[in-house]
Every structure is written in structure tokens, then in C-alpha cells.
């Protein structure tokens, strides 16, 4: 009997794969996925090259107090916050001026933003996975094939595992082939060449995508095993999909905003202007009173006050903002789509954590530029930035999101198993 187990399982897996290969559903799903992925790769690869050319123009010359990063090649797959991270940060005595970074020259992109790999997986592939899973049990029950299958000496566990595995392979193998082919083709360009570390990050990105897709397949099979009709299963799943992919991540952010009060950037800027006006006026009054015409102690004192207050305001803003981001992230994690986005953008170095890391580095850079100025040095030090290592990314939340996705996978599969074991096949 144990020898029969793999044979039986493989028989069901093979049947599922062949059934998919012969169906229009499979053909259309794979065509759509291929088309979308290649379009995305091509457009974002071109966009990356444009941004790289822009970077060559705006990059800091030796001695300039400017922090600007080149675009991240992995942003071709996960745009994330790369555009914000590649802005130019100019350091001066009065603070940091942020200028638009490397932007694509074609304004038409603003109207038709190109979905990146992460978006395609999050929205389209999740839907495709549901379409593979929604009728696995209910359709076969409707047609009576399930009764015929189960009139044989084959356990429900094997049937479910075979269905899951067969559909998972049908879905993931073409997806992997298209994705890897895209990566290899882009890598042929000497300007883009991915480093070993980038390739490893890309591997983790694809692995996370596979885990995410598997999760939706399990969800599809679970709902299919709860319903008697495939049509009902499809309607329920579309609702769950819309809530998971669109509603929860947006509502979570709104909800967090209600709980944490963060002033707008404009309000912060106005408050900072008020400090400036107050201190400059005060300085003028004091200088006139003391008949001080030089740039001595009074100016220094007021500039110190300004710096101190502005730094406090910024720090307070950053703290509140960080709290808002943390809360939003945690609420949004109710949806696996949010965890998927967090995990993949962090792994590729375009996530919130990486942006925060960059900002810390820019602030440190500002301090070193100002100390140079204090010392009377005219040349500013150059800005260097090292992306967080994969280990750091994983330890700072990435691993949690990955584990969370795996947890959803196990949960949906287990619920599907329980539902199928209890399923009335008549």
C-alpha cells in the first residue's frame, strides 16, 4: 500500500496538469500573465535605463554636499519607494532640501502607470490562482466525477493534495519560466547587470511570490470545498479577493490615520517658517538694541535656537510618522497582500524600512557636512550608502512577513482539508 501512495498521488497530479493544459482557462491565464510580465519588464527596464542616465547628470560632484542614490536595478521588479529614495538631498546650514530625483521623461506614464512584478503578482496572479482553485471541488461534485473518483480506494487527503499540487505546478512553472526568462534577458544588458546579491534578492522575491500565489490557490480550494456550486464559490472568492487586495490595505491606512495624529508636511513647513520669522525678528530687535552689526553671538544664538527647534519638530514629526507607518503596516497585515508587498519591497531594497534607513543615513550625512563646515572645511564629504543586507531585512520585519504568508498558506490549506474531509460528495 505505501508503494501505491506516490503512484496514486502522481496520477491525480498529472490529471490536474493535463486537464489544465487542455483548458481555455489555463491558456488565457498564462497568455495574460506572460503578456503582463513581459510588458512590465520591458517598460520598467527602459524606465530604469532612463533614470540611470538622469542619475549620471544629477549625481554629486566631489565636494558637493549632496546625497543622491542611483536607481536600484531591482526596482524594475519592485518599484516600491525607489523614486522617493533616488531624490536628491542637498545639505545646507539651514537644513535639507529635497529635489525631484531621477524621473522618467515620458509624462504619459503618469496616466498609465506600468504595473511592476509585485503589483502583477499581488493583483493579477492572486486572481488567476483563485480561478484555478475555485471549482476544484464544487465543479467535480456538480459533474459527479468526484463520486466516481471516491468510489475508488483513494483517500480524500490524496485527492486534495493531488489537486493542490497539480494546480500549483500548472500555475507556478509557467510563471517561473516567464519570470526567470525576463530576468536573464534584462541581465544581458551590461548597464543593468545584477550583482550576486541582487540575484539572491531576486530569488527571494520570486520565492515570496510563489508562496503568495500558493496561498490564494489554497484559499480557492478551501472555498470550493465549502460550496456545492462552482458559481457560488467564484462569487465568494471574488469578494474575498477584492477585500484582501484592495479594501483592507486602504482601510488600514485610513484607520491608522484616525488613531495617530500626524500633521501634514505643509503644516510642518508652516510651523518651521513661523520659527524662522520669530527668531529672525527677535534677532533683529536684539541686534538693534545692542547695536550689533557683526555676525557674532546674537546671530549664532538664534541660529542655534532655530536649528534646535526645527530638529525637534522634525524628530517629533518623524516619530509620529513612524508610529503611523508601524500601525498602518500592522493593520494592513490582516491582508496577505500587504504582507506580500512589505516583504518583497524590503527584500529588493525599495521598501519602507530601506527608505527609513536611507533617511537616517542622510541625517547622519547632514551632521558630518555641518561639522565639516564648523571646522571651516570647504569640501563636503561624499555620501555613501549601503543597502541593508538580506539578513538585516529579514530580521527587521521581512522574516515576519514571510512567516505570516506561510501561516496564511497553512491556515487556508488546513481549512480546505477540513472542509473537504467533511464535504458531502453526493
Amino acid at each position, binding site marked *: 500500500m505505501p508503494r*501505491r501512495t506516490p*503512484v*496514486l498521488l502522481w*496520477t*491525480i497530479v498529472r*490529471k490536474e496538469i*493535463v*486537464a489544465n493544459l*487542455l*483548458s481555455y482557462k489555463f491558456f488565457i491565464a498564462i497568455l495574460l500573465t506572460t503578456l503582463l510580465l513581459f510588458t512590465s519588464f520591458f517598460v520598467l527596464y527602459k524606465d530604469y535605463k532612463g533614470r540611470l542616465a538622469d542619475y549620471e547628470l544629477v549625481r554629486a560632484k566631489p565636494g558637493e554636499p549632496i546625497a543622491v542614490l542611483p536607481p536600484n536595478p531591482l526596482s524594475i521588479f519592485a518599484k516600491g519607494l525607489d523614486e522617493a529614495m533616488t531624490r536628491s538631498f542637498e545639505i545646507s546650514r539651514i537644513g535639507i532640501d529635497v529635489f525631484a530625483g531621477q524621473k522618467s521623461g515620458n509624462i504619459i506614464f503618469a496616466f498609465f502607470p506600468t504595473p511592476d512584478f509585485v503589483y502583477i503578482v499581488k493583483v493579477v496572479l492572486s486572481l488567476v490562482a483563485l480561478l484555478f482553485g475555485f471549482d476544484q471541488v464544487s465543479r467535480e461534485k456538480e*459533474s*459527479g*466525477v468526484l*463520486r*466516481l*473518483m*471516491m*468510489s*475508488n*480506494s*483513494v*483517500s480524500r487527503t490524496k485527492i486534495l493534495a493531488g489537486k493542490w499540487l497539480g494546480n500549483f505546478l500548472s500555475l507556478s512553472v509557467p510563471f517561473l519560466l516567464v519570470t526567470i526568462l525576463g530576468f536573464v534577458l534584462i541581465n544581458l544588458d551590461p548597464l543593468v547587470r545584477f550583482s550576486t546579491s541582487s540575484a539572491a534578492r531576486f530569488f527571494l522575491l520570486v520565492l515570496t511570490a510563489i508562496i503568495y500565489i500558493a496561498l490564494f490557490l489554497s484559499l480557492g480550494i478551501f472555498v470550493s470545498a465549502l460550496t456545492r456550486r462552482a458559481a457560488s464559490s467564484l462569487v465568494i472568492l471574488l469578494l474575498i479577493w477584492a477585500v484582501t487586495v484592495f479594501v483592507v490595505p486602504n482601510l488600514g491606512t485610513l484607520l491608522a490615520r484616525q488613531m495617530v495624529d500626524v500633521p501634514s508636511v505643509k503644516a510642518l513647513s508652516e510651523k518651521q517658517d513661523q520659527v524662522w520669522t520669530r527668531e529672525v525678528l527677535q534677532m533683529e530687535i536684539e541686534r538693534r538694541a545692542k547695536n550689533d552689526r557683526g555676525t557674532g553671538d546674537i546671530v549664532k544664538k538664534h541660529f542655534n535656537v532655530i536649528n534646535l527647534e526645527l530638529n525637534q519638530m522634525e524628530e517629533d514629526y518623524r516619530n509620529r510618522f513612524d508610529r503611523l507607518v508601524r500601525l498602518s503596516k500592522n493593520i494592513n497585515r490582516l491582508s496577505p497582500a500587504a504582507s506580500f508587498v512589505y516583504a518583497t519591497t524590503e527584500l529588493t531594497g525599495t521598501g519602507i524600512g530601506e527608505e527609513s534607513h536611507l533617511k537616517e543615513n542622510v541625517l547622519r550625512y547632514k551632521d558630518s557636512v555641518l561639522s565639516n563646515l564648523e571646522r571651516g572645511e570647504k569640501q563636503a564629504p561624499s555620501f555613501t550608502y549601503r543597502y541593508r543586507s538580506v539578513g538585516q531585512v529579514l530580521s527587521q520585519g521581512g522574516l515576519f512577513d514571510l512567516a505570516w504568508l506561510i501561516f496564511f498558506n497553512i491556515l487556508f490549506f488546513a481549512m480546505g482539508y477540513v472542509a473537504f474531509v467533511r464535504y*458531502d*460528495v*453526493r
Partner: protein
Amino acid sequence: MANQKPLLKAEDLSKRYEDGVLALDHINLGVRGGEVYCLLGANGAGKTTTINLFLNFIPPTTGTCYIKGIDVTKDPLEAKKYVSFVSENVMLYGNFTARQNLEFFAKLGGKTNLTKEQYYQVMRRVSLQEKAFEQRVKTFSKGMRQKLGISIAIIKDAPAVLLDEPTAGLDPKAAEEFLEILTELKGEGKAILMSTHDIFRAKEIGDRVGIMKEGRLVMERTREELQYEDLVKIYIDYMKSEPLTA
């Protein structure tokens, strides 16, 4: 045959559903090898429930089903090795050809090393047209699908066969061909339990005929007994009689 143990046996079998409906009420029956047992009865009489219990699709409320002496509830996977099943409306996988469907179900039934020719032979045996062997099943008529369904049962070569109204909706010629195949299977020593509405064919093929009403087996006759009795009259009399008290 009289001394032979039944390959299919229901002992004190009852089924009450969650909504309180008593679908089967203390049924006892047995089918030996080389015997065809026809279960007659109106819709809702309990025929399909009996077959569902034999296949362990639902658990019995009381009693036990045995296939080749194996308690179906206790060891369903072992018991199902010895039974084939043909349903009222064999749907199968529409995008698969007849041979692909047959191959898949043969493998599920434990026949893993059959050749294409062996699949063809079984399909020839049930008089499926040669050109249909590699045709997609979604283009098949009901008669063709039923033939393919019985070929799935044949290829498994199990000692017991359960048929749930297999001739329903078939034209007379297709139904006749179907019964010829059943006669062959009976000749091979299979124990066949068939639920049907078709009194005439039940009398023609059945070695024993049982009439079910409201979940009870109200009458059982052997082929010999039916030579002297009018099955149609008996059946109609039972159907017209007062409802049974629970």
C-alpha cells in the same frame, strides 16, 4: 451459489439525515458473486442512499455495509478495492478523450501498467465506436458516456459492481446493450447491485429483485419466484399501498 458468502452485504442498515428524514430503515440484503440484485422503487425510496452507504459517501445511522466481508465504515479504502461504481449520469472529464478518462480511472483503481491497446479492448467490449476512443468526452452522447462508465468499472475488474440507475435516460437500444454487458459481468462471477426504475429490465436481468418504499425493503423475490408472479403488478400494488408508518 447458495453456500457462497455475499460479496455485498447490508446488515440492519439505517440512515437518518440531520434534518430528521429517515432515508433507510433497517435494510438487510446480500448479493453473491455471479448474481444481479435489482433494487426497485420510486424516487426517494432509499435506493441511492443504499449505494451511497456501500461507497461510504455517508455514514450509516445504524448497521453495517460489507464489501467482500470488509466493514465499509471501518476500512473504506480497503473495501473500495473490491467494488466498481457506475452512476446514473457518467460525466467524466469533458476535455479528456475516452481513453484518457479510462486510463485515469484505471490507475485510480490500481491498474497502472496497461497498454493503449488494452484500454481499446475494454472500450471495444462495451461496443464504443472505434473512432470515439480518442475523441473528447464532451462530444459524447449519454449512451456513449454510460458505455465508457461501464468500461471504467470493467477495467477495475473488482468482484462487486454498484450501479445507480445506469440505464436512466438511455434509448432502448443503448439500454439493451448495457444490460448485455451486465450479463457478461455476471457471467464472470461479479456481484452486481443495481438500483433502477425499469421494472421490465429488472425482471429480465435480476436474479433477485427488491422493492423499496420509504426507506424499507418491502419485498424481495428471486428470479424463480418471479416466473409465477407479475412483477409489474406487485410493484404497482406496493406503490399504491398506504404509506408505511415510521
